């Protein structure tokens, strides 16, 4: 096995072009488990720890995205996302704070979740919910490619990166409304999600974003649920009035989220339980975010 240790991003891209089968390693919290148990032995490891721009984030405006955007370096650890970006990216901060343990959150990053593309990755539901204009910045010696988050996940632990590409950053619009994340596990730390759900209210364009984790071959959006609740809020003028959504619509939203999943039975839970739990999490997180939204309307009035 080779250990490639590029000192700069350009060197990393060159190394990946020359060794397309090299496995990128940053926090190591997934990669090292595979190596320790000898489940996988790549031809080379490509260490990204020395590339400082990967652990930096910046805010700005970018083409193809509305409003202010956080360009989050691929290797910014979850502990820092929660500490530094809880206002700008509340959903991702909440999700990141449920990853593993404090030690894991000091190393693990969104780039790692995206690279691994496990359906159980905690960042995915939050990224999907944050909007269809969340973009993964994939780079190679050939140039930069912006992959919309909805096109990023293509199968179980498979993403749409080309063999010579590395993830440089993720561009995530700054939240324009309340966001929530909910996850089911056997205890409050160190759990792989049985299933998870992310939600984001987008009052600016009158939409609601969702993301389902651990209940389908890939992380996925509950499209019908989003359209239903978006239509409900618009038709009844609720974005303006801040009125109650009401139990019937909340119930329907939960059912549509559950219907969007295609879960399986496995050691962590049954398919039926996952569907049930998703409906419950969808109802709860919708209620939490809507309450927060109506409170912000009232305090602004």
């Amino acid at each position: 096995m080779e250990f490639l240790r590029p000192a700069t991003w350009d060197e990393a891209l060159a190394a990946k072009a020359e060794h397309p089968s090299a496995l990128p390693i940053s926090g190591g919290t997934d990669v090292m488990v595979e190596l320790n148990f000898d489940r996988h032995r790549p031809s080379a490891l490509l260490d990204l720890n020395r590339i400082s721009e990967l652990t930096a984030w910046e805010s700005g405006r970018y083409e193809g995205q509305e409003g202010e955007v956080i360009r989050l370096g691929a290797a910014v650890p979850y502990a820092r996302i929660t500490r530094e970006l809880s206002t700008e990216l509340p959903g991702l901060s909440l999700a990141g704070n449920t990853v593993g343990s404090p030690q894991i959150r000091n190393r693990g990053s969104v780039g790692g979740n995206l690279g691994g593309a496990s359906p159980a990755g905690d960042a995915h539901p939050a990224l999907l919910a944050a909007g269809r204009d969340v973009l993964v910045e994939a780079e190679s010696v050939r140039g930069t490619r912006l992959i919309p988050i909805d096109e990023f996940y293509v199968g179980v632990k498979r993403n749409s990166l080309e063999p010579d590409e590395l993830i440089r950053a993720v561009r995530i619009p700054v939240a324009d409304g309340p966001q929530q994340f909910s996850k089911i596990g056997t205890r409050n730390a160190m759990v792989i999600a049985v299933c998870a759900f992310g939600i984001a209210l987008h009052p600016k364009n009158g939409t609601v974003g969702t993301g389902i984790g651990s209940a389908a071959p890939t992380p996925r959006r509950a499209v019908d649920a989003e359209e239903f609740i978006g239509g409900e809020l618009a038709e009844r003028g609720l974005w303006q009035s801040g009125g109650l959504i009401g139990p019937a619509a909340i119930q329907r939203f939960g059912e549509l989220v559950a219907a969007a999943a295609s879960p399986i039975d496995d050691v962590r839970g049954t398919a039926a339980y996952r569907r049930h739990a998703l409906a419950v999490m969808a109802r709860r997180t919708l209620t939490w975010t809507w309450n927060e939204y109506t409170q912000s309307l009232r305090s602004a009035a």
Partner: protein
Amino acid sequence: MRVTFTANGREVEADDVWEGESLLFMLRERLGLPGSKNACEQGECGSCTVYLDGAPVCSCLVAAGQVQDREVRTVEGLADPQGSLDEVQQAFVDAGAVQCGFCTPGLLVQSHDLLERNPQPSDNDIREALSGNLCRCTGYEKIMDAVRLASARKCSSSEVAQ
């Protein structure tokens, strides 16, 4: 490959390191630092917790080659070089927070970091900080006592200093 880094304030060098080897293995088997314990090898138990550039991490999940030119501090580096125990270590002894002792090094490093960042943690803060460290003997009560004791001593000694 050869890996050169700082371990507990001292420059060290390990030779013939396998490319897929963990920092934990290198510390224990090549550098004579067996304080960090090897249990789960998947980041579940926290027994191998060390500081890497000041942040506590599971050393079983860091590739040895990744620490080139960086700073590692293990449980062996908590006590001062004259041999007197760190406040957290002394509190674990005094509170009886050690039974078989296997989880202790990781708990010490993680508790040390907690008290550096937050000298007066609430019980919830302690539980959250130690949520990635498993102990199968104590039921955690004595460990909670030890961290509270270390916190009380730390706060009273800093008051005296003022």
